[in-house]
């Protein structure tokens, strides 16, 4: 029941039997599109309510508890509210870029979904350079922020955009290096191969301290890349009111908001895939009995469980730490994270060559 690949296969077979191959492919594409849109919307709703609940409990509050049971439909109500808000375009703005920016943010977030393996054999595009694809596409996200900030013709937005430009490109380096350490160990850029290589243990355990360090660097870097506190300088609300999306309202703002949350999901999914084994259940070496029990838990649950654990971690950071200053932020990257990750990758390589992993 939990095996998605069987469902996908049967749908595929049935479509090919009933329709011509071309039509079947088109219908499949539509189904995939609708599914992805549905996943997108659900993720947005779930992550928003999760963030609000997590923050509330950390702040000794109850959090939203009026709409629906325990306030679970609060984000739905928020969406409706944003839907009926007027989406304004400032008079002085560069209208074309201003309206284009949310689309780009969303397209980038959407494209990053392609190589993710949500469950065993359940993947849109089994790409043999999956890691490179992710690294390439995710660097486009900065463009939407720069576009939004620059076109708004607002000084806060401009500064927010500039800050996030400097920030995202800087942190992409250490994110890239920490991803590389897993690539070195697995010897492949294919996400599926990387997951398969963790069948006897996740890299975070197999890789000893060096991979653990790169995992921490990865978490820090992606927190910065998704513009979340303590690295939310692009929207630092006590300095720049709302940063790059100051002038956005209504649905356009909602799209940015959604893209931000989906980006958080995606980077956490990537982290889970690379370091925590993706959909791979928790296996220890050759303990066959234990591994067998773990296999009973469906692979999709493993994947989403790990991803949401990482999302929780990132939320936990957000509601605990103060924001960094722009120069400290860049210092952290260039003086600490980058040298450490450069050194770390050498360690990992040495480890990989020596075979010091089980």
């Amino acid at each position, binding site marked *: 029941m939990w095996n998605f690949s069987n469902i996908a296969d049967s749908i595929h077979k049935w479509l090919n039997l009933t329709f011509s191959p071309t039509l079947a492919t088109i219908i499949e594409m539509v189904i995939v599109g609708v599914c992805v849109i549905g996943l997108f919307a659900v993720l947005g709703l779930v992550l928003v309510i999760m963030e609000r609940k997590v923050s509330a409990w950390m702040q000794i509050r109850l959090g939203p508890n009026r709409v629906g049971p325990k306030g679970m439909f609060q984000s739905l109500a928020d969406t409706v509210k*944003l839907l009926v808000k007027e989406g304004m375009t400032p008079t002085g703005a560069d209208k074309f870029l201003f309206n284009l920016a949310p689309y780009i943010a969303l397209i980038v977030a959407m494209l990053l979904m392609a190589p993710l393996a949500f469950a065993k054999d359940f993947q849109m595009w089994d790409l043999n350079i999956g890691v490179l694809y992710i690294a390439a596409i995710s660097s486009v996200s900065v463009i939407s922020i720069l576009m939004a900030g620059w076109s708004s*013709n607002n000084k806060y937005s401009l500064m927010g955009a500039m800050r996030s430009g400097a920030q995202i490109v800087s942190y992409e380096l250490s994110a890239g290096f920490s991803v590389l350490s897993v690539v070195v160990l697995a010897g492949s850029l294919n996400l599926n191969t990387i997951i398969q290589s963790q069948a006897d243990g996740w890299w975070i355990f197999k890789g000893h301290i060096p991979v653990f360090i790169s995992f921490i660097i990865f978490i820090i870097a992606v927190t910065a890349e998704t513009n979340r506190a303590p690295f939310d300088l692009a929207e630092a609300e006590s300095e720049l009111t709302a940063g790059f999306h100051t002038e956005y309202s209504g649905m356009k703002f909602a799209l940015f908001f959604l893209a931000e949350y989906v980006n958080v999901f995606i980077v956490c999914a990537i982290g889970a895939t690379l370091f925590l084994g993706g959909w791979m259940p928790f296996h220890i070496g050759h303990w066959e009995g234990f591994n067998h029990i773990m296999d009973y838990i469906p692979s999709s649950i493993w994947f989403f469980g790990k991803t949401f654990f990482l999302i929780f971690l990132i939320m936990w950071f957000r509601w605990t730490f103060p924001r960094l200053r722009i120069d400290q932020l860049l210092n952290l990257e260039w003086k600490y994270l980058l040298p450490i990750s450069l050194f770390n990758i050498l360690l990992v390589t040495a480890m990989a060559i020596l075979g010091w992993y089980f």
Partner: protein
Amino acid sequence: MGSSSMIVLIIAALAFSSIAILIAKIVTKATTNPQKGEPYECGIPTKGTTWKQLNVGYYLFALIFLIFDVELVFLYPWAVVAKHVGWMALVEIIIFFFILFMGFLYAHKKGALKWK
């Protein structure tokens, strides 16, 4: 599904955002007045233009990033084969990193990594 999934996803994203914005357009009642279109600056009319030359500090990091990012791209193929190549790969990458690190130190010495 292969590379066609990219097209599907782009179309899905476009459809999703267009429909959302379209529904919002239909549902909302737009009113305009000149004050509404002003840029938000805490309720005070903005002084001077926004689109002008900005401090070079932001761009400097982008430039340094460019150098390092190109190196990072070189590292991807290396990383895939590093395990098979063996010790030679490590020696090579140490030399590579050494040159890179020298450049990094130079930039650091020059104060390019200091926020201005």
